[in-house]
């Protein structure tokens, strides 16, 4: 049995760590991508978009591989459903990060100067929420007692992101600088999309706190 663990178990432990690394990286690239776009660095933005597309398909493959291994080798039968559920919802975060950058790339929204800092701050808060939820997921596997600390941080960043989102939308709609109504709606749309990353991170954190209670011996 220990020998068995050295091969399959360790490999799977590595796969899970690798998957979690990719989710964190997706959050960071997302932040960098939005920053690059808003600051008008289109080349850098497109590189970020390419990177996140590759990362997304990569994370998908790892997740499928983990699922396959968990069932084939009959590992963690008790918490298998929870672990797969957790990895799937974490994968949703990567998907959304990629989708938002894709929409920036396709729709090329025109970001006025006075909204730039809000957009960057919103992306940064969403990225932080992602980072904390991944830390929480790592704790779920190794140190169940501190999961709630990370869950609280995710709640905090999501709440902050909500505030910035509202501020951004009010600024956009009250502004005389943006003349077209469609432009205002476009700004609202992107603010909501960026904030959605933190919303999904929060729903993963909610699941995580339930799984953590279930896993306590």
């Amino acid at each position, binding site marked *: 049995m*220990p020998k068995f663990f050295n091969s399959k178990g360790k490999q799977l432990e590595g796969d899970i760590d690798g998957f979690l690394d990719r989710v964190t990286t997706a959050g960071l690239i997302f932040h960098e991508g939005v920053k690059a776009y808003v600051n008008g660095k289109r080349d850098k933005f497109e590189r970020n978009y390419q990177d996140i597309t590759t990362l997304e398909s990569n994370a998908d493959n790892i997740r499928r591989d983990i699922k396959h291994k968990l069932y084939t080798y009959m590992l963690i039968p008790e918490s298998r459903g929870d672990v797969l559920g957790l990895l799937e919802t974490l994968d949703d975060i990567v998907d959304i990060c990629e989708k938002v950058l894709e929409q920036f790339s396709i729709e090329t929204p025109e970001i006025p100067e006075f909204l730039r800092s809000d957009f960057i701050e919103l992306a940064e808060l969403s990225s932080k929420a992602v980072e904390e939820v991944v830390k929480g997921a790592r704790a779920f596997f190794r140190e169940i007692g501190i999961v709630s600390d990370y869950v609280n941080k995710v709640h905090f960043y999501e709440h902050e992101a909500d505030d910035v989102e509202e501020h951004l939308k009010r600024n956009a709609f009250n502004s005389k600088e943006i003349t077209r109504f469609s432009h205002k709606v476009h700004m609202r749309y992107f603010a909501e999309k960026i904030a959605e990353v933190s919303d999904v991170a929060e729903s993963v954190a909610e699941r995580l706190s339930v799984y953590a209670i279930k896993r306590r011996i």
Partner: protein
Amino acid sequence: MLTIIFFLSSGLFLGWSLGANDAANIFGTAVGTKMIKFKTAALICSVFIIIGAVVSGAGASHTLGELGAVNQLAGAFIVALAAAITVLWMTKAGLPVSTSQAIVGAIIGWNFFSQTVTSISSLSKIVGTWIFSPLLSAIFAFLFFHIAKIIVERSKIHLLRLDSYTRIGLLIVGAFGSYSLGANNIGNVMGVFINSSPFQDITLAGLFHLSSIQQLFLLGGIAIAFGVFTYSKKVMMTVGSGIFKLSPVTAFVVVLASSITLFLFASQGLHNLLTSLHLPAIPLVPVSSSQAVVGAVMGISLAKGGRNLNFKKLGQISMGWVATPVASAILAYIALFFMQNVFMQIVFK
């Protein structure tokens, strides 16, 4: 020979039913939660039950012998049959039945019928142990639960690694539990046949000496193993997914606590050691593995703050201490009457 096999059949049937029911106490959660495959569990369980029965079965059987020395094969047949029917009947009624309590009742029934005086000191020793064993199991589980919790939380062990270690742990304590079950409970199955054992001592290749009692226990052990292989899977699936919802780590604690309890009441070595140290020795008495498990689960409930404490189950256990032996004694008495007067068999000397 055919007569001997016929008369032993009730004991073997009791063994089969013990294997079918009690293997689930040891491997139920592990198999029910798919931590261990049924075939692996059944193999380990059978092998260790047989080893436990042959190597260490004498102690607890001796106590049953003190209670009532059933000295005719036909009488022993009825005593084991009455116990087996009581177990079957109570199992159907959904009560946590104990083979130990059924056999003790049946022996008392034989004592009444043969007008043998029941040793009150032996009886009180046995009944005292029944009450004490779930309590002891609960105390062990309470302590082990806290130790396991501290270890798991402080070691920061990965979920997958914990899973792997828990499987190994469940296999090891499962083997230990099976050994203890065989040692402690073989007396229930074959104990009543000791005084009328049809076997002779044999020595295999000048190395292995098997006394007539050990041969009897080997046969009983095989009957238990047969019960494990043929019928215990169904019971294991019920235990694993039904009555007690345990996590793999708590399952490990439950099996460890109840196995140690069974072991303590069966270990001749420990008994001798304590006696030689002038300490009060633990009586060697067949106890109920089901009740040891229920005790352990209660211990864990208490360790978790007393939530989910199942008082109904506790009530059923206490009821079993009285109802099972009484039912079994009455049944044995009536059956002995028929065996003697209708089938014209000598049931006591």
